[in-house]
């Protein structure tokens, strides 16, 4: 083939430059709390929830394990998955309930949010 490798590489990068980034994927991977929450709930509420969980970890280092040691066992939302994608609808109150497996046993958190103003 006569294609110059560097030209082919440039064309590949040009295509990458226009690739559609997934806006928010409902992908739940059961082994990383941070990734799951950020990715599954991309939006204001997701960041709020993440900050909440991180704060828990930071404020209580003796009790809260590293994030990677946590596993989401359940993530239940009342109409939250769609709500967080829409700025207007995200003002609605949603509920999250996450159960975490930690080094100190199961930990359950229930949170409500209305966008980031909760």
């Amino acid at each position: 083939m006569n294609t110059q490798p560097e030209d082919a590489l440039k064309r590949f990068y040009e295509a990458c430059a226009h690739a559609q980034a997934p806006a928010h994927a409902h992908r739940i991977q059961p082994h990383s709390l941070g990734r799951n929450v950020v990715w599954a709930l991309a939006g204001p509420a997701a960041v709020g929830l993440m900050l909440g969980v991180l704060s828990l970890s930071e404020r209580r280092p003796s009790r809260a394990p590293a994030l990677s040691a946590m596993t989401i066992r359940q993530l239940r939302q009342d109409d939250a998955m769609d709500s967080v994608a829409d700025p207007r609808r995200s003002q609605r109150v949603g509920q999250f309930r996450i159960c975490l497996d930690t080094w100190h046993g199961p930990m359950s958190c229930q949170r409500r949010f209305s966008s980031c103003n909760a």
Partner: protein
Amino acid sequence: MRQIGWFGAQAKESDEVDNLLRELRPRIYRLALAMCASVESAEDIVQEVSLRLIRSRRKLPHLQDPWAWTRRITIRCVLDSRSVAPCPLPQDLIARCSDPDETLRVAATLATLSPDHRVILALAIFEGLSYEEMSEALNIPVGSVGSRLNQARERFRTLWEKD
């Protein structure tokens, strides 16, 4: 339901992080895709970078160039991830290319390069950085940038022609 204090107290901070993430996420994804040539790896990198941005949220208001800082985090994540998860390229990317076979061949060739080489090729060609900018982004001397870039180009060419 009882409202948890720290959740509401960080609303403003949360807004800032969310706005920054919303703005940067497409750029992070495209850079990661250029560096990894794998959708799955690129998505993982976006998640990891998002998490690191949130962890470093207190630095955000003081950054002069948030993208340069985010790019360094992205590079670190790509280098840390080491392996590339084999997975199909996105349809919109393939559809945009005049020669899909060539695109797949480039992705396959990139996947066999070392992370160092994939990263420096993307910085030089995809991001169009100067040697000085690459030196800063990679935290290596300018002279090393030149030699690493030449090695990466040569390696890519060798693997391409071997295929």
